[in-house]
């Protein structure tokens, strides 16, 4: 925007995003090159404010990064004790054998936001400069090389004009920029286009996770208990299921993931997650408890087949922005951290050796690491579910991972992007969802309230329709506004179906990125709002 009035600052390395991958990269870099200047930007109002995860985590990467994490007081306090895997029908359930990749012995149930806050403190101690409340909004490029990022202007009015409090953005220039924006990063998306990073790989596929944090009566709290469900309320062609983890002081993390390759435009992920709480398998855990927080976030499910080229002149993609999530395990924290650490190693070497444009050794390091090996073994599970449905996928996975130990001589591919598979409204069966009871199940607005989300109202809308006219002809006429159902924050509304017009309540957005992924013609563009905007997830989420 106001390019000339901007101040600039030089660093050796700039990290975009303060999740597990970005923080692990910053820490590793300072361990290897203490003299290097490292700056980390986070769009959330504080580190952890935008982190939403399960989360049962493996400590493998953390053990390598900070071997004495226990002594240093890392907030990993609830060891996993019991694993349950249930298949649900509407009223009944059966226990399935826990697939080997889902055994959790040695793992911990955590609040990932809390872990990130702790990692940030470790990073700051090593001299990393961390600036929460500022989104990287723009790529800086010179002579075909990314030379850093710029933060957005603050105080631009809704009309796009600078207001009385206007403060121009700032350029953060660096020899190398690490993009750690998590699933569907907004700058990573631009980089993939600009440098053709997705050429020759499968499209990325995604899931949407919606989560609630509960506090339940002490008598019923079983710290360390892990339960996953498949089956009801989703039909057999839709990938997804719930998680339920008992951890901390009487806390339960409950959530639901649905594959964004779902076909029925009438499906509402939010309502699915609400009605699933009525099932005895979930109800008995939460009844009598109190809901403390709510949020949602997309995750990358493409796995190995969808990992793009990782390096380009001036930078690297790390963490879930590159798609390093192990889908059958539903774990991406340890892989995100490992990718950040490997990136730091590649960058530390490049800083030492004349700062070549592209720190190419990253790709080689990834391919030689346990991270790659792990994703390779897991690669066929998610596509099998897309092909063979819920139970078929489960059986296929058992064969692939138990009998063949991930060494099947074939690779199943992701034939299409998630947005392309939605069926028109008249070809799909409407779904009748029950009304919330206000105790166990809730409506969207009271839920969004608990995400503490907030955006300065007087700013340009950060959700843009590339072609506004197309909303009526495609989104409404063909699909009856799927965005008003899949958006877990009630941002999209059609107040009057007789005179359909889309209302965008951008201030409610919880930055899950689903609309950027699932819009049937990719007509919705999510860009970073004014820094600090978005959810304020408390510790515990």
């Amino acid at each position: 925007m106001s390019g000339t009035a901007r101040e600039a600052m030089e660093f050796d390395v700039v990290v975009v995003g303060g999740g597990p991958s970005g923080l692990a990269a910053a820490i590793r870099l300072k361990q290897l090159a203490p003299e290097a200047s490292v700056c980390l930007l986070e769009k959330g109002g504080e580190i952890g404010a935008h982190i939403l995860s399960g989360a049962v985590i493996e400590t493998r990467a953390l053990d390598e990064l900070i071997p004495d994490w226990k002594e240093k007081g890392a907030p990993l306090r609830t060891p996993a004790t019991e694993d349950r895997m249930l298949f649900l029908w509407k009223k009944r359930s059966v226990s399935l054998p826990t697939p080997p990749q889902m055994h959790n012995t040695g793992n911990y149930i955590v609040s990932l936001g809390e872990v990130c806050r702790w990692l940030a403190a470790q990073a700051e101690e090593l001299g990393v400069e961390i600036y929460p409340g500022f989104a990287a909004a723009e790529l800086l490029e010179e002579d075909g090389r990314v030379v850093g990022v710029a933060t957005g202007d603050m105080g631009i009015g809704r009309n796009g004009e600078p207001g009385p409090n206007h403060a121009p953005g700032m350029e953060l220039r660096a020899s190398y920029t690490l993009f750690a924006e998590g699933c569907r990063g907004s700058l990573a998306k631009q980089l993939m286009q600009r440098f053709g990073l997705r050429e020759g790989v499968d499209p990325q596929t995604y899931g949407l996770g919606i989560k609630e944090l509960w506090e339940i009566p002490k008598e019923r709290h079983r710290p360390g208990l892990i339960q996953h469900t498949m089956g009801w309320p989703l039909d057999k062609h839709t990938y997804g299921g719930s998680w339920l983890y008992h951890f901390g002081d009487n806390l339960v993390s409950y959530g639901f993931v649905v594959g964004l390759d779902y076909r029925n435009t009438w499906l509402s992920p939010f309502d699915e997650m609400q009605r699933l709480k009525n099932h005895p398998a979930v109800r008995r855990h939460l009844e009598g408890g109190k809901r403390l927080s709510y949020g949602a976030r997309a995750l990358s499910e493409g796995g190995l087949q969808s990992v793009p080229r990782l390096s380009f002149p001036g930078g690297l993609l790390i963490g879930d922005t590159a798609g390093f999530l192990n889908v059958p395990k539903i774990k991406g924290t340890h892989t995100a951290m490992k990718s950040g650490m490997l990136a730091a190693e590649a960058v530390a070497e490049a800083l030492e050796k004349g700062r070549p444009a592209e720190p190419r050794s990253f790709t080689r390091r990834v391919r030689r690491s346990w991270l790659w090996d792990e994703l390779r073994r897991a690669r066929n599970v998610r596509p099998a579910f897309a092909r063979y449905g819920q139970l078929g996928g489960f059986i296929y996975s058992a064969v692939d991972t138990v009998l063949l130990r991930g060494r099947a001589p074939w690779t199943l591919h992701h034939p299409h992007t998630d947005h392309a598979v939605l069926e028109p409204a008249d070809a799909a069966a409407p779904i009748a969802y029950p009304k919330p009871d206000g105790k166990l199940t809730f409506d969207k607005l009271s839920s969004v309230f608990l995400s503490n989300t907030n955006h300065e109202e007087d700013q340009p809308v950060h959700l843009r329709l590339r072609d506004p006219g197309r909303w009526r002809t495609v989104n409404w006429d063909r699909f009856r506004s799927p965005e008003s159902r899949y958006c877990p924050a009630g941002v999209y509304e059609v107040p009057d179906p007789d005179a359909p017009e889309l209302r965008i309540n951008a201030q409610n957005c919880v930055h899950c990125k689903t609309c950027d992924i699932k819009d049937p013609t990719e007509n919705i563009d999510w860009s970073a709002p004014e820094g600090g905007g978005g959810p304020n997830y408390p510790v515990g989420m």
Partner: protein
Amino acid sequence: MKLLVPVKRVIDYNVKPRVKADNSGVETAGVKMSMNPFDEIAVEEAVRLKEKGVATEIVVVSVGAAQAADTLRTAMAMGADRAILVQAEEAPEPLAVAKILRALVEREQPRLVLMGKQAIDDDMNATGQMLAGLLGWGQGTFASKIEAGGDALSVTREVDGGLETISLVLPAIVTVDLRLNEPRYASLPNIMKARKKPLETIAAAGLGVDVAPRLQTLRVVEPPERKAGIRVGSVAELVNKLRDEARVI
């Protein structure tokens, strides 16, 4: 003219506070904290006075835990020159804070103390008045406009039913209200520069102030849930209900 601006670290105004399970207080562990919005207005006003050439130096002070240093850095990013952190364990009561501030006023000799009218966590609205009493200085509370001229200040106050303009002889205390100004953003370059501004940490005990609480909290509970409203058919019915059921008229 030197200004002293006290700032408090409170639960961020976007966060819905939650009462602790044992009813001993509001949960602050792991909750997002930021500068009390009224204090932000005070800092902004101080910076404007400096930009106008009225103020020469702005010293910000916070009384509280070590993390209050973040709040002081934000104030310096907005334009304050240096900061003092008075470290105290539990959040001290207004009287203790006022006594700590008195000790700092004696040390720093500011001509004006600009502060928020109240903190949004306990809504006490007391510290400014107590400090004025302890120092024997004039006070202008609930300021919505401040004009400086020579050795006096003209302060417009928000009072019940209107505005009142008073003239204050310096040194004085002014507590600020919402409409005084709209605080600026702490921009990233200024946040970076604020890291290099001086921040002095002193212990509350070192000031010789007794911070022991005088008040005892018995129980903290959530407000009762609001009952659903009703729709009345006519004005007459409304008047009847207000008189007979609600007994407010």
